[in-house]
């Protein structure tokens, strides 16, 4: 699997996203500056967290309209894989890759803490190595992570099993107390129609080492690597 990390002015989890595949697979990703139109033939494009353009105007709004996003769009339309984390999720929603929007947290404040995620579908390139219903401990760090969409969209997301992760209690129950940012239906991450684009507010790249408290997040990237390598292998053999 070849990965690329997009860097916008104000991205600040780009280093973390860069080191993620490096630590897990020993393979450094390509770093793609926002003005570039070359994704360097990456299989997986990671849009990292941070405050692209200072989150001025609206989180992700300006990054969504930058030159590189046209290439990311073309990549996705070709069936390429895209993972947007935190600000990356906001950018994917602003770009129209994913439905809905991320509103201000219901606390009206920035929230950084470890949360418990429940995997809601194993049927995606990013969750293939996980069991449906399994739990992960991953940090959140955002001011605008309160997922919202209209009723019709929600029904569709649920019907197509496109909710990838929900915020749950340590026992694995959806409950108001553990849905810190107030997301609709406790949604923490969603998939595109073809399931190859995932946007999620929590940071799996920050939870991939026991030293830092949790290595649960590594499963997201490992799943993607397995799915993509299998597909590439099949293409080669076929």
């Amino acid at each position, binding site marked *: 699997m070849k990965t690329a990390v997009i860097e916008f*002015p*104000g991205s*600040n*989890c780009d*280093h*973390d996203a860069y*080191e993620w595949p490096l630590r897990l697979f020993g393979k450094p990703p390509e770093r793609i500056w926002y003005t570039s139109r070359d994704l360097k033939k990456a299989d997986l494009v990671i849009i990292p*967290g*941070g*405050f692209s*353009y*200072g*989150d*001025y105007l609206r989180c992700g709004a300006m990054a969504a309209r930058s030159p590189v996003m046209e290439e990311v769009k073309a990549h996705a339309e070709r069936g390429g894989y895209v993972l947007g984390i935190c600000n990356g999720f906001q950018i994917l929603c602003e770009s129209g890759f994913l439905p809905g929007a991320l509103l201000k947290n219901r606390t009206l*404040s*920035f*929230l*950084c*803490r*470890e949360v418990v995620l429940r995997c809601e579908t194993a049927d995606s390139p990013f969750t293939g190595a996980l069991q449906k219903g399994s739990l992960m401990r991953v*940090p959140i*760090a955002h*001011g605008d992570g309160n997922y919202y969409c209209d009723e019709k969209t929600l029904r569709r997301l649920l019907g197509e099993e496109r909710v990838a992760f929900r915020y749950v209690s*340590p026992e694995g129950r959806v409950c108001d107390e553990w849905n810190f940012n107030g997301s609709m239906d406790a949604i923490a991450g969603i998939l595109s129609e073809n399931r190859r684009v995932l946007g999620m507010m929590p*940071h799996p*790249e*920050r939870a991939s*080492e026991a*030293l*830092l408290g949790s290595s649960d997040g590594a499963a997201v990237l490992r799943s993607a690597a397995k799915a993509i390598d299998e597909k590439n292998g099949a293409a080669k053999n076929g």
Partner: protein
Amino acid sequence: MVEPKVTVELAAAHGLNAEEWARLCTILGRVPTYPELGIFSVMWSEHCSYKSSRIHLKKFPTSGPLVLQGPGENAGVVDIGDGWAVCFKMESHNHPSYIEPYQGAATGVGGILRDVFTMGARPIANLNALAFGQPSHPKTPHLIKGVVAGIGDYGNCIGVPTVGGQVFFHPCYDGNILVNAFTLGLLRADKIFRGYASGAGNPVFYVGSKTGRDGIHGATMASAEFSDQTEQKRPTVQVGDPFTEKLLLEACLELMEQDAIVGIQDMGAAGLTSSSFEMAGRAGSGIRMELDKVPMRETGMTPYEILLSESQERMLIVAKKGSEEKVKKVFSKWGLDAVSIGEVTETGRAEIFWHGEKVVDMPVAPVSDQAPMYDRPRKQPSGYEEQRRLDLSALPDFRDPEDALMRMMGCPNLSSRRWVYTQYDQSVRTNTVFGPGSDAALVRIKGTKKAVAMSLDVNPRYCHLDPYEGSRLAVAEAARNIACTGAKPLAITDCLNFGNPERDHVMWEFAASVEGLSSACRELETPVVSGNVSFYNETNGEGIFPTPAVGMVGLLDDVDMRVPSSFQELGDVVILLGRTRGHLGGSEYLSLIHNIEKGTPPPLDGAKEKTLIELLQLLAKERLAHSMHDCSEGGLMVAVAECCFRPRGDDLGASISLQARGKRLDGLLFGEDATRVVASCSPESAQRIFDLARERGVEATPIGTVIPEKLALLIDGQPMATVSISELRARWEAGFPSLVSRL
């Protein structure tokens, strides 16, 4: 615009006294121009010149085998081995934060970050020490919310984790809060950048944000007391833009990778004036600048305003001649201005032009480093001896410690700071091993086995009762916190927050505090490598408690040796290291439960502290301790309760058995004797710990066992109290949110 006529009266309005006016006229050999007067007023302000404090600060121990850069630069630098070094400093932003808490605190973070990255270091950790007035004061909740949001939004946006700090409440801060921001950065030991304007003909580049009229005379504001008219000073507070600072940070670090920079400095307090004068002053050079070339964000600005503006997110770079295009290219990539506004000269003078007209022509050295220095009168405060007398005989001891413990855990000064730190990004950059809530923050250094520990400490009540001993205790507690993670304390930065230095009792407190910090730093072998003095923390003549905040940095050679602060295993033995005498003077218990703030702070034996700190490192190295936690504010019972609370809420309990031997119970449980640590270990390791402690003369007492769910207390074998940990945690967690929910 017609400039005002420069007179002794105008100088007085700029905060310069008659003596200083005469001195500057002598230096120039004439009456200054209006811009020159502005330059003198900020450069000789207390904030920039340290004119009241310099004579005392000379006493600090500032050197050591690991010190690569001591005080006098933008930040201190300490060697951590393998070619790496850490750069750190702490700075106050008290006055602006009181006037406008959000922007005041935010720009405080922005300023300290620039001080660190200007040295060539990538900032990897922020901490902050805050002090607010009593929670019931009508302004307190608003100030807390603004300050915390300001710190959070700036650090979060720029992507530097906030990993620790402290919050203290006391009525003495009702009219003058404290916001002290600390940043630590990582750099290669042989790639330190400094604020030097050397090499005649080298171009002087202005980079970063454009200049506006914000913050004019911020440094002068920070050098005067507040009154009820303080609201009118709001326009002197700067406005922060963390997004631009992020671009500036990346652009500066990228340019530093190329061979283009001679010297670089942040335009902080007193903006373009202080950066240009200090850089030229350090190098013994002159500087020529054309102010009309400065990128401006508004029209009609005068030379005076451009020189004194404290617009944020700007730096001054002296580049190597011939590398102009390199500088422009990097900054253009990041969408920032980079304009050559002048050059370094050999004249030793600052010559500043405005559309071809010379508006400033003055020698650099007398302005930058021959500022007035005062040995201001010092006198022990009246009532000092009286407040130190504490007669406990009239105070009944308690029979039931449960109620006191419950109240202590939920009180403003001891309750959980979760409400604060969940608003800070603690984990960005994926280095945070121990974050807020730990004794010291621990941040790993990628590519090595090392980790850096950091702790900010001061107990203002101790410093009020005895500025000398209180300051020593601040250094000792910081070092102990560092050592509780297993790390070795290396060096400190400080932020000395005091009242008006023109009052003799404030100056007495300041001098005693500097003596105290110096003596403890000598004893613990932790030199002072950077720091900041904030005077005039007074409103309507009421000063704050002397508050010398200490920021200690330590090194853990192997992060696998780290020791957490909370209990780890059921059945582990709980050991108290250090001796309990039951010292109640200056304690949180006396203040909270009995409303008494008297007595002397606990005595500190520096040699014993050093031995304990070395023992803690040894216990970590030999992997004998499962947890180690400093026992300070709130005393032994509060420390044990804190050990029961685990970060994920899977709390443990403890059964604690103490011998009173005729001592007062309140002193035994809540006394704040220094040099103590609550440790836990497996039953198999306990004997080894006792042996190691005995060999070193450290008292080590088994005081109990880690159990589930409850905190049970036996005194002299008799059950004294049993509280449920979940109830205790509920109290501890509810304390802080209840303070801020009144708004």
